[in-house]
């Protein structure tokens, strides 16, 4: 039982925090409000690549640092603390990780060095309209030729779909689900931009016979569903890490603001009603952090962690909601004033709350596991 970080983890954490807090300023972020610019800071991306952080969990033979999922999750936590405008989750977690784990040697060799150097962007489609279960897509894959496929169907809320070179997509076919990388070369794939709360570039993709060659299949029908669960678990855990950064920063902003803000001749933080609500946030954030670290730690050693991941996501949803509104409230009008940086954090707390399973849906899932006798306390 070790809650401290080792040397590599400390280095990744400190380097990420230093770079992101320096490079992602409130002024910088305001460029992307209301989609006035594409919310992707490519200079930041290049600098993260130069520092080696994009390859933090990519093997050294593909140009990465060769660390694991824990180090990657710590980078995501820092990205949450600064709400960095970059596809760290969708590229590094949801697609590069499974490519490295399940992709062929040739495919890894072709793509991963580009991810680590920042020149190649990957993303993943984990949601369909009306379907939030990534392992059970209704998108269809029809075999064509020897071992190629054509995809038919729609996915939505795909982050950075048009910015990415390849989109990881799951599709139902005879005998199961396949997981593959869809390229941008096809006319049979139409991306329509969505407008979402965070201003993150997200798209709906309509696929009408998109061609996928055999060499871009990550998992065949017998393995695809399991691979998608693998991806979902890591994406959820990394989202929880991102949420930890988001709410920790919201809370600390609130503590500072209420310590400065004077009413009735004293800082408002000295009122117990204020201090205690902030203390509740502190407890909440600690619960989220610890359940997240547990899930991340188990996934890092490839242990079974589905219960722990679900529990972390329940906390991420609840804590995101509670800390977001508490922070706004304790800031008074400043919390919603767009000239003060808090409001953008509230948007991200909301996105993370609802991504890949709300608290209620996760509780229902956990309830099923409990009923089946699969979630007893050790």
């Amino acid at each position, binding site marked *: *039982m*070790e*809650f*401290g*970080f*080792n040397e590599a*983890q400390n280095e990744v954490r400190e380097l990420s925090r230093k770079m992101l807090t320096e490079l992602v300023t409130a002024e910088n972020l305001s460029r992307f409000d209301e989609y006035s610019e594409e919310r992707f800071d490519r200079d930041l991306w290049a600098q993260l690549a130069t520092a080696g952080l994009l390859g933090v969990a990519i093997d050294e033979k593909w140009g990465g640092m060769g660390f694991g999922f*824990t180090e990657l999750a710590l980078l995501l936590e820092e990205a949450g603390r600064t709400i960095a405008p970059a596809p760290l989750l969708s590229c590094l977690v949801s697609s590069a990780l499974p490519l490295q784990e399940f992709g062929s040697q040739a495919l890894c060799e072709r793509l991963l060095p580009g991810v680590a150097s920042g020149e190649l962007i990957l993303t993943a489609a984990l949601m369909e309209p009306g379907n939030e279960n990534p392992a059970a897509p209704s998108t269809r894959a029809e075999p064509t030729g020897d071992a190629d496929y054509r995809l038919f169907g729609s996915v939505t809320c795909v982050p950075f779909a048009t910015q990415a070179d390849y989109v990881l997509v799951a599709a139902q076919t005879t005998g199961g689900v396949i997981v593959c990388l869809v390229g941008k070369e096809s006319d049979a794939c139409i991306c329509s931009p969505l407008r979402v709360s965070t201003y993150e570039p997200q798209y709906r993709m309509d696929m009408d016979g998109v061609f996928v060659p055999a060499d871009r299949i990550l998992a065949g029908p017998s393995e695809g569903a399991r691979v998608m669960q693998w991806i979902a678990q890591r994406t959820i855990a990394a989202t929880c890490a991102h949420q930890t950064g988001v709410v920790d920063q919201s*809370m*600390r902003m609130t*503590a500072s603001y*209420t*310590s400065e803000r004077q009413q009735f001749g*004293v*800082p408002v*933080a*000295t*009122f*117990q009603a204020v*201090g*205690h609500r*902030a*203390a*509740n946030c*502190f*407890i909440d954030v*600690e*619960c989220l952090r*610890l*359940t997240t*670290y*547990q899930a*991340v*730690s*188990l996934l890092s*050693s490839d*242990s079974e962690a589905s219960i*722990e991941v679900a*529990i972390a996501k*329940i*906390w991420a949803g609840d804590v995101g909601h509670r800390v977001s509104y508490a922070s706004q409230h304790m800031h008074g009008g400043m919390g919603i004033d767009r000239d003060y940086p808090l409001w953008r954090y509230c948007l991200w707390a909301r996105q993370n709350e609802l991504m890949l399973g709300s608290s209620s849906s996760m*509780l*229902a899932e*956990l*309830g*099923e596991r*409990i*009923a089946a*006798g699969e*979630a*007893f*306390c*050790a």
Partner: protein
Amino acid sequence: MKVEFTKPQLALRTELREYFDQLMTPELRQECAAAVGEGGGPLWREALRRLGRDGWIGLGWPVEQGGRGLTPIEQFIFVEEIMRAGYPFPFLTTESVGPQLAEHGNEWQRDELVPRILAGDLLVSIGYSEPGAGTDLAALKTTATREGDEWVINGQKMWTSLAHFCDYTWLAVRTDPNAAKKHKGISIFLVPNSDPGWSATPVHTLGGVRTNATYYDNIRLSEKHLVGELNQGWKLITGQLNRERLSLVNVGPTSQLFNEVTRWAQQSTCDRDGTTLIEQPWVRMNLAKVRTGLEALKLLCYKQAWAMTEGSLDMADASAAKVYGSEYFIEAYRLLGEVIGQASTINSLSAKDSVLNGRIESLFRTASIITFGGGTNEIQRDIIAAAGLWMPRAAR
């Protein structure tokens, strides 16, 4: 970062479970049930001495203090398992007063009393609160005044739990009435409960648990009964409370209860449609909420045990665990009680129809103690805001 027990730690847990299965005989269980989870009976005492003989009490203590030299994490596993087994473990003595005496006590306390604590042979109650001093503990009025070579103790304490079967009271008294700040004039004495000037009257509580009002009437003590330095008692009090808070929110019993209620719901028929209760969505939801909250509490506790091995126990974290745990228990017992339904109000003395031996019925009545006991949650939240978030405190 590795948020998992090591193999030896898991093996220790298994060993302890087997050990406690043997220790908790039906007769001992019955005696403990009659004492409403407090202990104090002859079989309970015998079991405590056996724990001492078998070297369990000081498992995580340093060898030079008479322990086995494992870490606070192993110590925590031990406490979790013993509480899960349903043995009313006197953790105030073993987990908070004992380590404080081993660290700050004089020769007599270290060489004579501490070994007896580790042997399961000596029990200490805690005398802090008074009729006029609770949350504002530093306002306490019980005094120790020097007369020649002796200290003379006079005053009254409230909520001196377990005192009626303890050997000593760890007593906070005023030794300097003129100190510039009132908490600078406080010292700790170990008062023998056998002294003719010592008396207790029972206070019966909602949970059926007995606590006490205790009285100190011209008790004359030699210098060796003073713990630590004169007028430096406040530090000992806060140190003791930090350790106590950790013990208050142990997850062992609730893990066990969650498992048992789940099994019960898997086997019980729902009156609405004849399916098992566990098929009901609201039952699953209640259990899922309890399970989710429990996981966080477990990790809050383990993190503190880990922090103690690193010597970096954080004040805000300790308070956070206490607030969260105490409020979680209340909610958990409600959610689990709802699953059982009205039958959860039938207590263990009923010949028929009580569920899980009426445990929820009893827990519902005892749960409120720790939201204010061990330092009320309002003060804990003040500590969290100040120590964890650097927010300024109101003048008091």
